[in-house]
C-alpha cells in the first residue's frame, strides 16, 4: 500500500501538524518507504490469533472511585503558555 499527496495532507490534518507544500512530497516518500518496509506483514498467517492486549497476563487493577487529589490549580497552570483567572486561555472556539 502507498499513500498519495492528498492522503499525506489528510493525515497531517488528522494529526494536527501543519505540512508545507515543499515538505509534503518528502513526507510522502518517507511514509511510503516505511509502508513498504511493513508490507511483508501481509504474508503472515494470523488466522485465529488473538491480538495482544496486555503485555503481562494480569487482570486490570482497579482503584476505588473517589477523589484523591485536588486544589492544585497553581501547580496545574504553572506551565501554561497563556492563563487567566485560574483557566487556560485558547482562541475563541464558538461564535
Amino acid at each position, binding site marked *: 500500500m502507498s499513500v498519495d499527496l492528498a492522503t499525506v495532507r489528510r493525515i*497531517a490534518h488528522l494529526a494536527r501538524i501543519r505540512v508545507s507544500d515543499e515538505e509534503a512530497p518528502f513526507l510522502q516518500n518517507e511514509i511510503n518507504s516505511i509502508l513498504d*518496509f*511493513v508490507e511483508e*506483514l501481509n504474508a503472515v498467517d494470523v488466522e485465529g490469533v488473538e*491480538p495482544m492486549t496486555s503485555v503481562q497476563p*494480569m487482570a486490570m487493577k482497579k482503584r476505588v472511585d473517589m477523589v484523591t487529589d485536588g486544589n492544585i490549580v497553581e501547580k496545574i497552570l504553572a506551565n*501554561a503558555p497563556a492563563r487567566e483567572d485560574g483557566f487556560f486561555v485558547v482562541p475563541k472556539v464558538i461564535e
Partner: protein
Amino acid sequence: MSDLTRLTLAEARNGLASKKFSAVELNQAFVAAVARAKSLNAYIVETPDKALEQARASDERIAKGEARPLEGIPLGIKDLYATEGVQTTAASHILEGFVPRYESTVSANLWRDGATMLGKLNLDEFAMGSSNETSFFGPVISPWRRKNSDAKIVPGGSSGGSAAAVAARLCLGATATDTGGSIRQPAAFTGTVGIKPTYGRCSRWGIVAFASSLDQAGPIAQNVRDAAILLRSMAGHDPKDTTSVDAPVPDYEKAVGASVKGKVIGIPKEYRLDGMSAEIAALWDRGVEWLRAAGAEIREISLPHTRHALPAYYIVAPAEASSNLARYDGVRYGLRKTGKDIVDLYELTRAAGFGKEVRRRIMIGTYVLSAGYYDAYYLRAQKIRTLIKRDFDLAYQTGVDAILTPATPSPAFALGEKGAADPVEMYLNDVFTVTVNMAGLPGLVVPAGLSSDGLPLGLQLIGRPFDEETLFALGEAIEEAAPKIALPEPWWA
C-alpha cells in the same frame, strides 16, 4: 586524593561507607568532570547545586550511621523522567522550558535511597531514534573514537546521553528507557551495561510516554553489579501505573557472581541474519563458548516470527506515539504558536515544536489507526505480537533459561552516516533488541569485545519474565570471560 570519577558505583558506595572520602568530595569530582565535558553534549541541564546539597545531606546520614542503599551516589537522569523543579524536555522544542511540579516514581525511588542528581541527560527527541541525532538540543558525541581517527561517533540512542555520560565517567550510573532498544543499543555502542527489565517491573509514571505498551525504565552503568544495584532501587510496584507489577523486588546484587552451571542457553537460529558481519558472528560464537566454559548448556532454538518483529514494531510504536503525543497542543504546557483559531494554533504549534523524526512517526501512527486501515495495520501487528511472544514462551517451556544474541548488527557509526536518505536504514539498528519489547521480556547487554576499528561491541541476554536475576548472573559470567574494555581516556576535557 586519587580521581574519584574512576571508581565504579559499588566501589564508591564502599568507599563512602568506610569513610575514605565524603559524599561532597565524590560529588564535587563529578560536578567538575561534567563541567569539563560540554563538548560531548551529554547533559541538557546540569544541576551541580542540587547534587552538592543532596551530598551534604548524605554526609550527615553517613555520619549518623543511617546510610541508605545509594547514599551520596551521583547519577544522571535521562531527560524523559519528570523531575520536580528541574526542566524536563524529552529533548523536544515543544517541551522547552517545561518545569514539572511532580517527580517520576523511578527517580523518586532513587532519591528515597539516597542518590544525588548531577543533571538531565540528552536523548533522541521523545526517545525516537537510534543515534541521539534527533535531539532538539543537538547530538550527543560518544567518548569513543575509531582507531587513528577523530571522526565524531554516535553513542547510540535513544538513551545516548545516559550511555555517553557513564562511559565518559560523568556519573556513576544513569537512568534510561527502552521502547525498542533504547537502553541496550547505546550500552552496546559505548562499552557499558544496560538492562531493560520485564515490562511492569518499573513504574512508567512520570516518564514522558512514547509507546506505552513497550516503554520500560532501566539503568545504564559501568558493569553488571552496578546495574543490579541501580535496578533494585528503581524497580517496584506503583499504584499510579496500573501496568506496574505488584511483586517483591529481589536483591539483584546477590545474583551477581551466582553460578551459571547447568543453565540452559538458547541460541536462536533466526538471529543469524543474511549478511551478518563476520565480526558480529564471531563475537556471538565467543559468547557461546564463554557461557559453555562457565558450565552452561547451549541449545539451538527457533523463534520463527523474529523477522516480523521490526516491521510490526514500526506499526505498534508509532500508533501508540501518535496517541500519546496528542497532548502536546500548545494549551497546557510547552511551546505555543498563535493561530487564527484553535485548530490553527494546534497545527502551527505541533509543526514548529516537533522535529522531523517525531512528525514522521506521528503521521505513520495516525495513518495506521485511521478509519479503514486499523484492521489491516494495527490489529494485524498486535496479532503478530502474540505470535512473537508465543515463540519465546515455547522456548522457555522446553527448559531454556535465557537466550544469547548479538546486541547490534554493527558497532557505532559516525554522525550523519546513517538514515539520512531512508529512515528504515536507521531503524535496522534495533533488529536484535526490538523482539524483547514486543514480548515484554527482560534484556541485558554486556560489553564483549572491540570491533576491528576499536569500537565496543555487546552481547544481549534475553530472560524469562521477571527473571532479571538469571540475566545478572549470566551477564557477570560474560563480563568475567570477555576481554576487559578500558573506558576511553578523556580527550574531551
